[in-house]
């Protein structure tokens, strides 16, 4: 890959693999826009709760106030600070997304790698398992499980979402592994007598690392959406505020009829922006990693 412009004195695209990725990453508008939006919300989740001057769940503010200097995002019908609820909910969203995304990615990678590399009977069994979980409407399963748990935390919610959202990832990774397994360098490693684990994590996984990163991003975004939906039905964590729960409270308490937009617009907007930025970043990453898609 040679430099396309030549005008830039540092045109480093040809230098080394990593620099090349960076070179294209910094010139990809989709990736940059997505990353900026994502970072803004991430910073809000990390530092927002420190900035909040009020507790999220206490009723110490004047009720139903539009945004003002004292209450940046206004207050709820019961006199809670919306800004404080928002940043704390944002934090929960990121925590659930990360935990659930990791759980699903690990399960998906494990199943995908072994099914794709081993083939045969292992593949048949794992494929069957994947198909069953894929067909089950997992949201309905989450509904029943969560309904029976009277005390739920962020961790349990993330675990359940992770345990049910891996199938498509497993399928995609399996297909990739399958095509890599027939390559010569894997055959060489096999001839050298390397162990299955070593081949999978030393030879196969690094060759699809970009793919794995993108899979994780999609799992992360999907988990945030699922968590918001569960929270909205009232099956989210019982011990903390979340963006979904904010929307639930606002709808259940006639915020729509009263026109209290500051109560329900921020939580949904944040989720849309975070998940949307992840999707756009993914497209950008695809263009960075895949030379065929680079349009410079």
């Amino acid at each position, binding site marked *: 890959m040679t430099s396309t412009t030549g005008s830039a004195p540092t045109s480093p695209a040809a230098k080394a693999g990593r620099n090349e990725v960076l070179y294209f990453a910094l010139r990809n508008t989709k990736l940059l826009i997505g990353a900026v939006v994502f970072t803004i919300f991430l910073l809000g989740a990390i530092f927002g709760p420190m900035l909040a001057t009020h507790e999220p769940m206490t009723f110490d503010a004047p009720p139903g106030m539009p945004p003002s200097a004292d209450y940046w995002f206004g207050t709820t019908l019961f006199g809670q600070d919306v800004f404080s609820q928002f940043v704390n909910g944002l934090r929960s969203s990121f925590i659930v997304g990360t935990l659930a995304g990791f759980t699903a990615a690990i399960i998906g990678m494990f199943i995908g790698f072994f099914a794709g590399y081993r083939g045969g009977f292992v593949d048949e069994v794992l494929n*069957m398992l994947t*198909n*069953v979980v*894929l*067909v*089950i*409407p*997992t*949201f*309905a*399963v989450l*509904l*029943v*499980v969560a*309904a*029976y*748990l*009277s005390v739920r935390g962020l961790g349990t919610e993330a675990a359940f979402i992770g345990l049910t959202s891996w199938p*498509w990832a497993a399928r995609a990774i399996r297909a990739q592994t399958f095509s890599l397994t027939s390559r010569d360098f894997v055959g060489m490693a096999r001839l050298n007598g390397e162990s299955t684990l070593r081949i999978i994590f030393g030879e196969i996984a690094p060759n699809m690392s970009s793919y794995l990163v993108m899979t994780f991003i999609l799992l992360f*975004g999907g988990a945030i*959406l*699922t968590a*918001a*939906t569960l929270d*909205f*039905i*009232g*099956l989210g964590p019982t011990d903390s505020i979340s963006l*979904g729960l904010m*929307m639930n409270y*606002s*709808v259940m308490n006639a915020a*729509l*009829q009263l*026109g209290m*937009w500051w109560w*329900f*617009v921020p*939580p*949904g*907007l944040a*989720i*849309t*922006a*975070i*998940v*949307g930025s*992840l*999707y*756009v970043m993914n*497209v950008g990453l695809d263009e960075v990693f895949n030379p065929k898609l680079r349009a410079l």
Partner: protein
Amino acid sequence: MLRYLARKLFIYLLTFIVAVTIDWAIPRFMPGNPVDALVSRIALMPDANAALTSYFMAAFNLDQPLWQQYLNFWSALFHGDLGRSIMLFPTPVTTLIGRALPYTLGLLLPSILLSWYVGNVVGALAARRKLLDNSVLPLGYLLTATPYMWLGILLAWVLGSTLGWFPLAFGYDQSLKVEWSWQFLGSLLYHWVLPFASLFMVALGGWAIGMRNMIIYELESDYANYLMALGAPQRLVRKYAFRNAMLPQITGLALQLGAVVGGALVTEIVFSYPGLGWLVLSGIQNQDYFVIQGVFLFIIVGVLLANLIVDIVYVIVDPRTRVGLQGDAA
């Protein structure tokens, strides 16, 4: 072809058994005991609790060995018995579901099919047309990233509350009698518009993006290049690309069903629409476990049936599955 369908059927059967087993196992192996919850809700004198507990244990056959309970569960299921609602005792759960189901189906079927169709057409038009693509792609990503309930909330707020064009809640005008009159049907349709529109719009984005990407991929394939080299008109090449790009979209339809059903449930909650979502919500709020479990089973059966229909359509559309060549991996 038969082998393809048989394989799919086997998976659906297995899924059904797994789902029913989950439905049976969750109340029995979860921490906390629904019977205790039920007894404490009735809240009698302390010494009456023990008697009541043993009564309920016997009434729900919870004192029998587990394998016997499991068989009983299946037998009840095949007799169409999903238990009785606690909040609306003694209405059978099946009656409640039967009442709610038409509303949910009335929302789901049109929004799934229409969004799929419109999304495919829009996506195919957007592919390789710079101007349209630049608007369709960002909008599509924005729509797929939107939580179902939030779009519903926004529509209800802007079109319902602020502008007053559409009703904010319920499945029909509450002052009307439920009957087959034009007035009632009109009210039904009027209340249906907003929940339908929000489901339709969220689902639309994903289909448009999927189709756009597939078409671009197909237009770069050998057969498309060959056709163009022969001087075939653009329209013809695009037509073939569209037909090929359709196949993954059909598979995608089956995969998306679960998510759309989840979306319909929360959309109903936003609009207080009297479908399954609203039923589940009141079940959760009243700890009416039979209702939750019954709705769960209904959703599973519905999604499996829909999957089967999609598979049959796939066999009709993709000739490779008929002659036994490998079409879509099962």
